[in-house]
């Protein structure tokens, strides 16, 4: 059985005319093996865009189209390609792993130089870095493929705004470069995913290929803008822009992958033109001369790949050893040519092996195997003999050659983290100091800080089921721990095939009583499904006989039918449960603020400490202060009167609030327990009014109890006071230790939506959006004001209200805005920036500092903004497309707003943090002028003796409690850490010198 493997050998004769006196390789005859393994295909013939052989020669990867419009990466075993006996041996796996995670065609796959990682990228604008793991493997669900190996993504790099066409690892794997149709090249830091070292802007057309020189000094990119750029890795500036050979080129190739010779002497471009004919331009490293080219292909050249070895062989006539490089060129004319730099004619040209354009080439590290892939979905393999191709120089010989030619080699590049030329010897010392300092600071910070709570892992032997308020189940799945490092070659893969069994599930289901709230955001707008779907093959599958006569409409149901949302259809099915969902949605549409959830009953207490929801791991996004109530949700089923702008707070049947105070490890903290609809005894008669109970409990010992006749809607506690509100618009303030009422119940002017207590200050936000603050000890109203204008017209409601350490009221909205009230202005000020801006700006500069609860006082801005969802979100959001200029501008404005907010809050820590971000931002963008402006201010007037100078008078030596000069000294170090341009190094030296002079003056 099985498909017939078509294998064929091509014996071709090539000869060359030795009239130019070059070395003759083989007198008349080239013997090489050419084959096209038919089993290498993507989903039965989809285009293969990229191929790369693993450095250790064990396997290779292909990338291209998968099912429908999705992408596919496949890792293959090389042995069955090279050796016929393995190809026929069914025990030798051919496909090692199929990775279908890319949502768009995969245009490039590249192994890192070490072979440890595989990078893949494509039309879905992301780069995925893969690493092998022993965790997993098995069948690919919904297909017939079995993965023998498991490759897991260790990083997903987002940053490009368009399809990515090429990636390249630098020598020594220091950087990864990616080329995209967004006209940019991004340099990624391989030791710190997903950090971007630099975005190389300059191309004005789609960038279609990148390659590094073998010692890591230059990077080359070729683009549709009819240019090829050479970038310096020292400062990421353009070393050379080459235009001449490309002026006649049209953008008719899918890719333009240039190549750099392993001796570093020549760069060879993809598609160039000479006298109207397509060529591959040879660019001499010495002066970037372009007077030579490879000519003969009939259509544009798509890819150039050098044999990774410098080769040598003896000249048969003179017996002298000759060194040369070997390059393979692939073209849209469907042919491949292979050239030696020592020969004027190609070693061999292979015509007509593909039915469509050649898209990528790859050599093995031994140098004898060459692979080529084509848009026609096939792969060709060429096996040369050492006599033909030559003998590779050893690694030492190559490195020595590089050292001789360039003073550096791939080895030295790899060992030095910082390849920058240091102009100033002092910089070297300072930089080392800085490195040690950073290390020490890091270490001390880690030891000071308590370790973050380890997220509660899911159960590993059972699943836990709870119920949500609307009766649905919430399942915490069984976690399958990875078996990292445990190799199990005899693993049976059959077991995980999609199948069916007669027996029932063996998974233990633990049902837990109590109501939980599902962790879903219901307030989202109706889903917009992307029409871009990928489905498994519906074709050529034989159904068992009993499934014959499938109704015609059924297969269409496997994917969503256009226009008709299945939810909509289920509504009409008169299913009670589903219908109610639909009604709920309608209400949301009409009054988005009033009702967020139907019967959502969030527990007030810290979920992880309660038996009702033991399954919830602390959310990484937001860790609310335990004393604060969760965002409220409405309980109303009726339509709200129009004057209510906020939902009334609600508590579930029972809730606990941890009472703050000294933390002891032996005794659990005391709790304020609210039990609504408390049943006294077992015989609650019909006429008995519902009673609700509030108590203080520690270790199951109740110290005081209060019974109420109205439902408790919010509750909070401080170390001295307990406060709660009831549905009957009352506010109760009690002494926490005795349960004694400090005031008779206070009648609110509306139902409570938010409650906050700090020392003797109490803050209530009612459903009509009136915010009132009292000092209950002084019996004084501090503020009563409508905040309706802040809430209305925004998506979502109020997340919480609170007071800063200075006693300033703060209002946090679920949409991400934070407002603070300025007493003098009697107005509310927006802190930071509106949430919508954040997704537009460059995330690396707008991320908030890590915030620890103990920092609350020292960093009010950071701690406030941390509580609003928009700032806590992942930095890895994919961002809408806006121009780079606009993004740069928005980022600067964003940082400036943060600075102003920090200044307003008089938060020195926050101010310094954002000032540093600003400087880092300017350094990365290379905005020297703006850096100078900041530094000049920090440095102060140049001549301090001229006190009558206007500047000297107005200049203050301090900013927000910080000494400006100390700040300058610190910020100057950022330049050192940024390890980039020469230009900024000079800036460093300039200011450092001036700073040192002023310091001496002061002494």
């Amino acid at each position, binding site marked *: 059985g099985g498909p017939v493997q078509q294998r064929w050998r091509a014996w071709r004769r090539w000869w060359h005319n030795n009239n130019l006196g070059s070395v003759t390789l083989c007198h008349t005859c080239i013997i090489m093996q050419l084959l096209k393994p038919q089993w290498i295909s993507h989903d039965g013939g989809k285009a293969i865009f990229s191929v790369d052989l693993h450095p250790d020669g064990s396997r290779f990867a292909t990338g291209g189209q998968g099912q429908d419009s999705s992408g596919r990466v496949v890792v293959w075993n090389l042995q069955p390609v090279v050796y016929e006996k393995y190809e026929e041996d069914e025990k030798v796996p051919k496909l090692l792993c199929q990775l279908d995670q890319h949502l768009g065609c995969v245009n490039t796959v590249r192994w890192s130089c070490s072979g440890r990682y595989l990078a893949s990228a494509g039309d879905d604008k992301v780069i995925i870095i893969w690493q092998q793991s022993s965790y*997993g493997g098995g069948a690919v669900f919904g297909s017939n493929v079995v993965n023998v190996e498991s490759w897991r993504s260790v990083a997903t790099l987002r940053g490009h705004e368009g399809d990515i066409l090429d990636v390249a690892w630098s020598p020594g794997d220091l950087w990864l470069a990616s080329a995209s149709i967004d006209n940019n090249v991004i340099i990624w830091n391989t030791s710190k995913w997903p950090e971007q070292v630099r975005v190389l802007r300059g191309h004005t057309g789609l960038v279609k290929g990148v390659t590094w020189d073998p010692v890591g000094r230059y990077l080359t990119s070729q683009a549709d803008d009819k240019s090829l750029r050479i970038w310096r890795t020292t400062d990421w500036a353009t070393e050379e822009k080459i235009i001449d050979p490309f002026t006649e080129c049209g953008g008719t190739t899918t890719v333009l992958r240039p190549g750099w010779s392993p001796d570093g002497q020549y760069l060879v471009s993809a598609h160039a033109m000479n006298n109207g004919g397509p060529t591959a331009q*040879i660019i001499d490293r010495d002066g970037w001369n372009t007077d030579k080219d490879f000519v003969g292909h009939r259509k544009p050249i798509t890819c150039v790949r050098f044999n990774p070895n410098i080769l040598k062989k003896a000249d048969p006539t003179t017996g002298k050893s000759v060194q040369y490089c070997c390059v393979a060129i692939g073209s849209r004319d469907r042919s491949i040519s292979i050239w030696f730099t020592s020969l004027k004619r190609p070693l061999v040209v292979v015509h007509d092996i593909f039915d469509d354009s050649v898209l990528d080439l790859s050599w093995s590290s031994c140098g004898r195997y060459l692979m080529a892939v084509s848009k026609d979905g096939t792969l060709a393999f060429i096996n040369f003999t050492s006599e033909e191709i030559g003998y590779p120089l050893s690694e030492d010989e190559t490195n020595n050659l590089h050292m001789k030619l360039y003073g550096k080699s791939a080895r030295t590049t790899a060992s030095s983290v910082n390849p920058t030329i240091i102009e100033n010897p002092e910089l070297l010392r300072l930089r080392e100091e800085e490195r040690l300092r950073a290390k020490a600071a890091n270490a001390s910070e880690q030891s000071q800080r308590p370790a973050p709570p380890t*997220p509660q892992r899911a159960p590993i032997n059972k699943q836990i089921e709870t119920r949500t308020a609307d009766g649905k189940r*919430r399942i915490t799945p069984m976690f399958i721990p990875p078996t990292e490092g445990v190799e199990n070659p005899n693993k049976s893969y059959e077991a995980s095939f999609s199948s069916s069994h007669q027996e029932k599930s063996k998974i233990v289901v633990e049902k837990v009583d109590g109501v939980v709230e599902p962790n879903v955001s219901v307030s989202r707008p109706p889903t917009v499904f992307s029409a871009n779907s990928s*489905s498994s093959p519906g074709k050529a599958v034989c159904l068992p006989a009993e499934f014959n006569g499938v109704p015609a409409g*059924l297969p269409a149901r496997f994917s969503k039918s256009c226009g008709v949302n299945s939810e909509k*259809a289920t509504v009409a099915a008169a299913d009670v449960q589903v219908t109610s969902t639909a009604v709920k949605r309608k209400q949301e549409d009409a009054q988005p603020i009033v009702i967020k959830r139907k019967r959502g009953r969030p527990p007030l207490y810290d979920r992880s400490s309660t038996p009702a929801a033991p399954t919830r791991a602390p959310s*990484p996004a937001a860790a609310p202060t335990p004393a604060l109530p969760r965002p409220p949700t409405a309980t109303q089923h009726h339509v709200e009167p129009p004057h209510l702008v906020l939902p009334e707070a609600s508590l579930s049947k029972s809730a606990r609030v941890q009472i703050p105070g000294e933390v002891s490890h032996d005794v659990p903290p005391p709790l304020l327990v609210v039990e609504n609809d408390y049943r006294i005894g077992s015989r609650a008669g019909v006429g008995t009014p519902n009673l609700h109970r509030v108590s203080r409990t520690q270790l199951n010992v109740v110290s005081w109890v209060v019974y109420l006749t109205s439902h408790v809607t919010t509750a909070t506690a401080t170390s001295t006071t307990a406060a709660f509100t009831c549905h009957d618009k009352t506010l109760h303030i009690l002494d926490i230790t005795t349960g004694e009422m400090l005031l008779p119940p206070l009648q609110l002017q509306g139902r409570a939506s938010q409650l906050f207590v700090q020392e003797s200050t109490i803050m209530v936000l009612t459903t009509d959006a009136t915010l009132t603050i009292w000092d209950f000890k002084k019996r004084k109203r501090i503020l009563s004001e409508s905040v309706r204008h802040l809430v209305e017209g925004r998506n979502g409601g109020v997340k919480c209200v609170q007071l800063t350490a200075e006693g300033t009221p703060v209002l946090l909205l679920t949409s991400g805005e934070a407002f603070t009230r300025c007493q003098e202005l009697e107005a509310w000020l927006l802190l930071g920036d509106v949430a919508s801006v954040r997704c537009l700006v460059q995330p690396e500069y707008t991320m908030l500092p890590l915030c620890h609860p103990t920092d609350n006082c020292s960093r009010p801005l950071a701690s406030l903004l941390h509580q609003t969802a928009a700032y806590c979100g992942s930095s890895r959001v994919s961002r809408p497309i806006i121009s780079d200029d606009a993004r740069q501008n928005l980022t600067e404005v964003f940082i400036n707003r943060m600075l102003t907010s920090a200044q307003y809050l008089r938060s020195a820590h926050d101010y310094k943090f954002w000032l540093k971000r600003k400087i880092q931002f300017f350094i990365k963008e290379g905005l020297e002028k703006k850096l100078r402006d900041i530094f000049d201010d920090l440095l102060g007037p140049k001549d301090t003796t001229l006190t009558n100078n206007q500047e000297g008078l107005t200049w203050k030596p301090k900013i927000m409690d910080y000494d400006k000069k100390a700040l300058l000294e610190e910020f100057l170090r950022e330049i050192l850490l940024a390890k980039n341009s020469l230009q900024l190094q000079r800036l460093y030296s300039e200011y450092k010198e001036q700073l040192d002079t002023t310091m001496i003056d002061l002494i």
Partner: protein
Amino acid sequence: MAKVHIVNVVVLDNPSPFFNPFQFEITFECVEDLQEDLEWKIIYVGSAESENYDQTLDTVYVGPVPEGKHMFVFQADPPDENKIPVGDAVGVTVVLLTCGYKGQEFVRVGYYVNNSYTDPELQENPPDVPQFDKLQRNILGSQPRVTKFKIDWDDAKDAENIPPSENASEGASTSQNSSDMKPVLSMETSNSACAMEVA
């Protein structure tokens, strides 16, 4: 890139009587900690003719979902037989297992389901009014049809929904490839130092 991938689904208690609950043992892998719960659904297609007869058998929230591999059994009650058109009770239909995140469906697994009488007598002469208690349900567990949908996993507005800009040149290159090869550029007109052999 999707954050959640279905590793495997095993259909359990299959085949079984019509009124037995559905049981799917689902293994999925998550590449990074999820902020919200997943929402899984089992939808029974009552009739091939119209989506109006679809029945959502159950909806469950699954969470929290940290990075890693997870497994759970999803059991749901059988469909309400009163809502199945009489003509569609016996024969082949479809059951769908869907999963959504933040209200967006990102994967749909479909199975063919065959409902048939086990009693040869009934097979020969099926009653006019279907006898559901005599029906056996057989799910074709070995042939799932998987459909994936691109969704917005993060809270970014719409970046993923912007159609990729078309590379117009690609089409051109494909069409040109089939055209006849032009004669090879002759050596004389080229000032190139290297030239390919004229075959």
